[in-house]
């Protein structure tokens, strides 16, 4: 995991979010309060503005800085959750970690979201993308796949699981108040997680 690559991902993700504004925004308007796009856009702008600080620091520091920046810029429900993820990853990652190590750190990051959000698989949240992706990542890392194949498979899992949030009954977050009126709608946080993951897969593929 090189600093340059992470910085590149910050830019690509920012661009992807801007490109998908309508989609993200309409999801949170349908079953939330309509601010999710604005929140993550604010977060990704904040990350772009700290890029110079990320150039020459250790990997764990990068994740920590990203976490702190998201923590103080995003707000809402997604802010502390994304922040928890990165802060947790920063504690479990080291310079030059291999994919297996990374997949373990990733899983622990996802776990910290579950703790912070008191949520689990099936609650119709971002976890419904992150947990399947994390599990797949573990399997693939163990099996030491080629990067091309690995990114393809991860991307497929992300895509499939975001779609699956449609049919879930929400029990956490703002959508919970809606109960079964939320069925038929994709969870906005799940959508942005999928977009972020797909974007990073795409970037990985180019390396």
């Amino acid at each position: 995991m090189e600093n340059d690559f992470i910085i590149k991902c910050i830019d690509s993700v920012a661009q992807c979010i801007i490109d998908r504004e309508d989609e993200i925004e309409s999801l949170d308007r349908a079953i939330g309060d309509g601010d999710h796009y604005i929140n993550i856009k604010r977060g990704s702008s904040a990350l772009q503005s700290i890029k110079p600080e990320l150039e020459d620091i250790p990997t764990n520091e990068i994740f920590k800085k990203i976490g702190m920046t998201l923590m103080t810029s995003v707000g809402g429900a997604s802010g502390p959750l994304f922040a928890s993820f990165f802060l947790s990853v920063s504690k479990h990652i080291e310079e030059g970690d291999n994919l297996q190590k990374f997949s373990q750190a990733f899983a622990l990051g996802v776990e910290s979201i579950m703790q912070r959000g008191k949520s689990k698989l099936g609650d119709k949240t971002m976890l419904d993308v992150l947990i399947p992706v994390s599990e797949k990542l573990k399997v693939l890392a163990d099996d030491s796949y080629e990067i091309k194949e690995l990114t393809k498979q991860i991307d497929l899992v992300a895509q499939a699981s975001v779609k699956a949030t449609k049919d879930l009954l929400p029990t956490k977050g703002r959508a919970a108040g809606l109960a079964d009126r939320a069925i038929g709608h994709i969870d906005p946080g799940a959508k942005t997680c999928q977009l972020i993951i797909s974007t990073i897969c795409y970037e990985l593929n180019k390396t």
Partner: protein
Amino acid sequence: MKKFINKTDNFIIDSLKGFAKAHDDLVELNLDPIFVTRKKINSDKVLLVSGGGSGHEPLHTGYIGKGMLDVACPGHVFTSPTPDQMISAIEYCQPKNGVLFIVKNYSGDVMNFEMASEMISVDHQTVLTNDDAAVINSSYTSGRRGVAGTVIVEKVVGSLAELGGDLTACKKLGDKVNLYSSSIGAALSSCTIPAAGKPTFEIGDDEIEFGVGIHGEPGRKREKIKEASLIAEDMISVILKDFEEKSLNIKDSNGVLLLVNGFSGTPLSELYLIYNEVSEKFSAKGIHISRSMVGNYTTALDMAGASITVCLLDNEIKKHWDSAVMTPSLRWGNEDV
């Protein structure tokens, strides 16, 4: 979208600046990170800190002052504030007798305040408000939402803290007021988040959203508009059922506080009309209204609609409700006492 606004990104700051200037005898605004405190900070009392997404004005900034809050941390529109705001505000105030957070029960608010809570060393407690009776089956969800009842919690606990109540007492009273309060709202129109630029939800010319949240979140049901009297009836039955489920007796002889709260787009005349409907029906049911409030106290940007909140008044709550308060948006009693 039509609003008095410059750049959408600056909306909150521009508005807070005006607020702070218009009330510079009472409050002080801090930028970077954003928080608002009383002009004169009393570090000997329990520090009452609230906060939440903006767009609900006067909640919470308008309730800073003697007899109510010490600090409010406004987030972006409909987005909870970030932990650094609460942390910096507390550092700034240097409370010697602990901090009470008053937090509306939304995942975002809860988590951000929780993170702040993990990062401060001063003694503190949190009162979570969740007075919204609209959310059914709340045991399966992350819980009921905190809405206009929060104002009552802030007023009542504010009084106790002002009179020297300690952290444990304040937390206990706050939890009681929250338990004793139930709310239900209905929207006639959507609201528009400035940065989004379009209405949060679509609603027909003859429809209302019953049980709406203060962020325009969908409620219990979408239905055809009907006479105010019938809407009031529906609201009352939700409230009565809620008190029943809480095993609280709404017919307590001390009476109740009835708050008819506007979401901002509905004129005062209509709020009074709702008050009339509710009070007539309450009196037919033998429910005694002993305190009243009618106005825009917990709003949802430009949404048209209203909620009612009923709070049981025991002697302790009543006493602290009646005590003097001097904030930008709630003011009564003797000012130099």
